[in-house]
């Protein structure tokens, strides 16, 4: 049964629906996915809608965009419960929960101000995921460990 709130945005014909995003994080999710003002297709965002699973949640609908798993898994860094629905001809043809990647490259800034990645050196910040639940990452360069909350504050 479709929950009434979800109908705030009508079903899409083709594309990707990202559901169960942590409430208030939809904009950050778009940022991680690299969807900017230059994106030509229709993007619908609903924030803070009631959810049985999470209390509240955000939803993003991307029309005519089919994201690959590697790209969407980056979302797990800030919203580990997010689910991905691939829609073709109004039907869900694939559905899965995002899974944290092994390595995080170029999405998060190291929160250690003395880390070499926060200097003028031409390097991309790189982290190993050392725990998936709760999500914890370790800087490849300075070894600083960052928690989910810290990751969220340091999305590039």
């Amino acid at each position: 049964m479709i929950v009434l709130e979800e109908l705030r945005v009508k079903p899409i014909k083709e594309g990707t629906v990202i559901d169960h995003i942590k409430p208030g994080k939809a904009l950050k999710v778009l940022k991680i996915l690299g969807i900017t003002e230059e994106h030509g297709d229709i993007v619908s965002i609903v924030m803070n809608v009631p959810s049985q699973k999470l209390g509240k949640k955000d939803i993003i609908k991307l029309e005519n965009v089919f994201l690959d798993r590697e790209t969407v898994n980056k979302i797990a860094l800030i919203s580990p419960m997010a689910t991905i629905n691939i829609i073709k001809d109004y039907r869900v043809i694939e559905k899965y929960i995002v899974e944290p990647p092994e390595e995080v490259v170029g999405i998060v800034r190291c929160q250690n101000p003395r880390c070499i990645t926060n200097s003028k050196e031409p390097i991309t910040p790189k982290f190993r995921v050392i725990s998936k639940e709760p999500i914890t990452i370790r800087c490849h360069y300075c070894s600083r460990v960052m928690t989910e909350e810290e990751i969220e504050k340091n999305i590039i």
Partner: protein
Amino acid sequence: MVSLKGKDLVSIRDLTKEEMELILSETDKMIPIARGEQSSKILKGKILATLFFEPSTRTRMSFETAMQRLGGGIIGFASIEGTSIMKGETLSDTIRVVEGYADIIVLRHPAEGSARLAAEISSKPIINGGDGAGQHPTQTLLDLYTIKREAGEIEGKKVVLLGDLKYGRTVHSLAYALAMFNAEIGLVSPPTLRMPEEILKDLKEIGAKIKEYSSLKEAIKEADVLYVTRIQKERFPDPTEYLKVAGSYKVDLKILKDAKENLIIMHPLPRVDEIDPSVDETKHAKYFLQSFYGVPVRMALLKLILVG
């Protein structure tokens, strides 16, 4: 076969136990050369670059002595005054230039992770000579060597780490290495400077045997090795609090009355007043010898990395 030829040394965690053992046994052979009793030309024609973006006389001088004792040459700088770095050159570019001049590079840099970056860029081996509050692996190696040489062995020894166990990077790396060698680790620190939970968790995961003591008096009876570190004044907002704390962790002749006969006392130096000078005259004091061992350990490392 275990070999370090051509490898970088950024963190003590880059080394396996076998590789550490190789360095320690090679160090034994270097002692007479380090003392000037024998001469060696094993690194003749090789050049070491010491790039010190922040001053550290001890680490730099011991590396330079080590290289020269083995017949090698040295280039480098002891501070960034007068270098291209003052003109705004990045570390990445400096490394790319220097790798064309030298066979091996020792780097000391204030930014954490700088040595890891240098190792990724350089085609020549990089040894981390300290990256800010990050890693300083050659200090750990010389600490291990001192324990092995002066306490007889590392395995099974009770090594009590005393002082600032929160911020002191030397004790974190040392504790990790001691765990690899199955030593027992004792911890004594002011409550505000306890070893961080995540480090303790990390140590326990690799099977470390750890005991926390409430006082130095309690720990001293069981210690085979007492590793003293400096408690920095700036960690305490209240100077009277600092004096109180520093006083209760001071090693003097009185506290040593309860010590084991063959206890050895170590310190990464410089010390301020955590070890009373009267202790220097006792047979327990090994900290100056420990500092000397920095030379043969670095000789062993240079030799193993450059010629195998």
